[in-house]
């Protein structure tokens, strides 16, 4: 008995001793962010899109997006096409790497060369897939060549972090990605997998030193815990407030909600190859059957917006102001169904994933209810990610499936999923395909806009998908936080944020 008690005691002691060593007191003058998705990597080469939220604290692209998805100068001050297939970038002067050495054209060439090298595994490689070479003109000028005219090169480059040639060559990519040496507003301090990422202000940042001395990004995957950490004052800003917890922040005077419409368009897509959705009248009927305004209030807390009967959101290049969403009109939906020969209705289902998009399952359920009221008896089928990937591959996603397409500000990025080559859609339209190709290979912005506007019209008439919502990004913050705004592309931009 005694020995048993001693064993337990020894066990407890060992554990307690281990704890003493690790301290997590937040250093003073630190901005603390509660992150919903915490990437397991800070390497530009690995991880999903949201890894960029970490990467861009320390590194920077040539051309950046701002919080509204507009392109702004970053490491390149300006850029222009010198030939249809050659773009010249004028680099910012006087920029220093975190180790004090100057940033030059050699770093840009090194990065682009290694990203486009077929041997390299790089997550967002496809963003600059058309690049065939980079030439150094002088220390502060580079030219990037593309295989075909590319209006979207600068937008693509916004997802490519420029890395330091000297340290990456010396340490190797793997080691260099572990402790970033960048040009960005924050310097690396410590990254603890699954827990937190600590950074400190870069006093020599070309855009001026950050407003706060230190930055801590904390992993808080569970929505209720994230909100609790904000209420308790442990975090200054939290990402993605769950819609059902909005009231607990709204009712507190010292906390604020900030929301922005993202460029993610949530849609319900049809398998137009098979009845009943091979008939455009049935697809239009479903569009009339859904009361999108009520759903926006109920499922998204009134944040975000109802899409204007087209794939892109209002802030996206290519938006057509002349198209409006079909109004909610159940009688008309029923009439259209009868006209198409489905007076008695039919059975169908919506496939969706869970937790992939804000309120995804709730939205699918509400839509199914409304479609059922109009005569299409609809059930909801919640699928796990791996099963979803297999259905995608088999090109059999079911009669209706819910998906969010994001544009990061340009229609090219999400209309591509409706073209024949994309393997993401069952709908096919020759004019649409042709316009998409044309828009992508001209440098004339007016001609591009015209093409996208026409593409939106085609989709509005043909209804390959019901265009539901521009999903919101809802963040919470302490009232003492200033200079914060959630970004449409969901990356954290914290350089100018301060706490009173």
């Amino acid at each position: 008995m005694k020995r048993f008690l001693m064993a337990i005691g020894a066990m407890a002691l060992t554990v307690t001793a281990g704890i003493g060593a690790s301290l997590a007191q937040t250093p003073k003058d630190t901005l603390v962010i509660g992150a919903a998705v915490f990437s397991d990597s800070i390497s530009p080469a690995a991880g999903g899109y949201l890894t960029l939220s970490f990467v861009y604290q320390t590194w920077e692209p040539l051309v950046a997006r701002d919080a509204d998805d507009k392109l702004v100068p970053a490491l390149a001050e300006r850029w222009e096409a010198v030939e249809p297939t050659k773009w010249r970038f004028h680099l910012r002067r006087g920029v220093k790497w975190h180790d004090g050495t100057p940033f030059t054209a050699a770093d840009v060439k090194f990065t682009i060369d290694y990203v486009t090298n077929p041997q390299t595994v790089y997550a967002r490689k496809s963003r600059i897939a058309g690049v065939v070479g980079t030439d150094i003109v002088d220390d502060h000028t580079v030219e990037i060549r593309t295989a075909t005219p590319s209006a979207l090169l600068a937008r693509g480059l916004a997802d490519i972090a420029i890395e330091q040639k000297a340290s990456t060559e010396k340490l190797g990519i793997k080691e260099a990605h572990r402790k970033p040496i960048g040009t960005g507003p924050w310097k690396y301090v410590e990254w603890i997998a699954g827990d937190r990422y600590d950074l400190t202000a870069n006093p020599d940042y070309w855009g001026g030193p950050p407003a706060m001395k230190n930055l801590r990004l904390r992993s808080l995957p569970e929505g209720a815990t994230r909100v609790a950490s904000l209420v308790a004052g442990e975090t200054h800003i939290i990402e993605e407030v769950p819609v059902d917890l909005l009231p607990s922040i709204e009712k507190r005077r010292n906390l604020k909600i900030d929301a922005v419409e993202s460029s993610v368009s949530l849609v319900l897509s049809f398998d137009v190859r098979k009845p009943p959705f091979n008939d455009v009248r049935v697809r239009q009927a479903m569009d009339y059957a859904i009361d999108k305004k009520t759903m926006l209030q109920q499922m998204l807390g009134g944040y975000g917006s109802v899409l204007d009967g087209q794939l892109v959101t209002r802030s996206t290049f290519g938006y057509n102001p002349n198209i409006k969403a079909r109004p909610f009109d159940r009688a008309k939906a029923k009439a259209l169904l009868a006209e198409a020969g489905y007076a008695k209705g039919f059975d169908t289902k919506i496939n969706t994933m869970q937790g992939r998009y804000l309120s995804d399952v709730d939205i699918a359920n509400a839509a199914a209810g409304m479609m059922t009221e109009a005569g299409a008896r609809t059930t909801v089928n919640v699928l796990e990610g791996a099963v979803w990937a297999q259905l995608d591959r088999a090109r059999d996603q079911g009669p209706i499936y819910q998906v969010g397409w994001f544009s990061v500000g340009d229609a090219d990025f999400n209309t591509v999923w409706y073209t024949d080559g994309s393997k993401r859609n069952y709908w096919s339209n020759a004019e649409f395909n042709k316009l998409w190709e044309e828009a992508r290979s001209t440098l004339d912005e007016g001609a591009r806009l015209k093409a996208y506007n026409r593409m939106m019209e085609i989709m509005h008439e043909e209804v390959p998908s019901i265009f539901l919502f521009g999903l919101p990004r809802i963040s919470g913050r302490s009232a003492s936080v200033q200079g914060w705004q959630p970004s449409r592309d969901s990356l954290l931009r914290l350089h100018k944020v301060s706490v009173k």
Partner: protein
Amino acid sequence: MRYLLRRLLLVPVPLIFVIAFVFVVLRLTGDPVAIYLGLDATPEQEAVLRAELHLDEPVVVQFGYFLADLAQGDFGTSIQFKRAAMEVVMERLGATLQLLTLGLAFAILLGIPAGVACAVWKDKLPDFALSVLAVIGQSMPSFWLGILLIQLFALDLGWLPTSGRGGLEHLVLPTVTLATFLIPNFILVTRVSVLETMREQFVVTARARGAGAARALWRHVLPNAINPVVSLIGLQLGRLMGGAVITETIFAWPGVGRLMVSAIFQRDVPIVIASVFIVAVTIILANLLVDLVQAAIDPRIRLR
């Protein structure tokens, strides 16, 4: 010593079974190529990956290749993180072990005395009150309890942090949540075991020879009643790991449990297998330890 050596030599046997099971289930429930490459892969890329992962061969052969890599300590490269899978898992192991050991120690230190109290005061107030508490604890989902604890101690009272890993104060709520999940079992098993022992002849004899109630309990009942409780510790380890997954999620604890679950959803097979491997090793070794402790307590158990 020879016993210990033999047991250690047998450790790989259950491990291979566990790994084989996980391997086959993951292969059956999702084509890795579909998940790794997505829809835009060219047929060439697909063929390369299929050959690389030996997916063009029967599952048994695939498993053989996999074991050969494993024998060299190579668990493969994580699909998501592009790093050695075992390295990613080891970074998280410390956090989970800390939580598990502390939760278990807490459950033992509270659960066993409470169980003894129930038995001693059988059918009286302490027995009744503790048994009711045990039933409540057993039926309360950890998820809910965790959020209630955050609400009370972090938000309303402001005594403890809501989440994260750091100093001692960060450990309290996760440990209590995890321990609450285990304590009821310890109370109920200890109670029954002590009650049964108290009815044994040798206890009655001891009392008849004049041993006081306290002495009889300490010298005669407890040493005999403790063994079933110690075996329970071994059996609880699997459940404990399940509880850790939930606790880690609520309290944003950077452990293996959370990593494993997200890897399963992403079909990041190397990470899943590496973490299952580590968890299995931990459970097997802990059970070995339990056997040793049992032998130390009860001389009738001979380690051969």
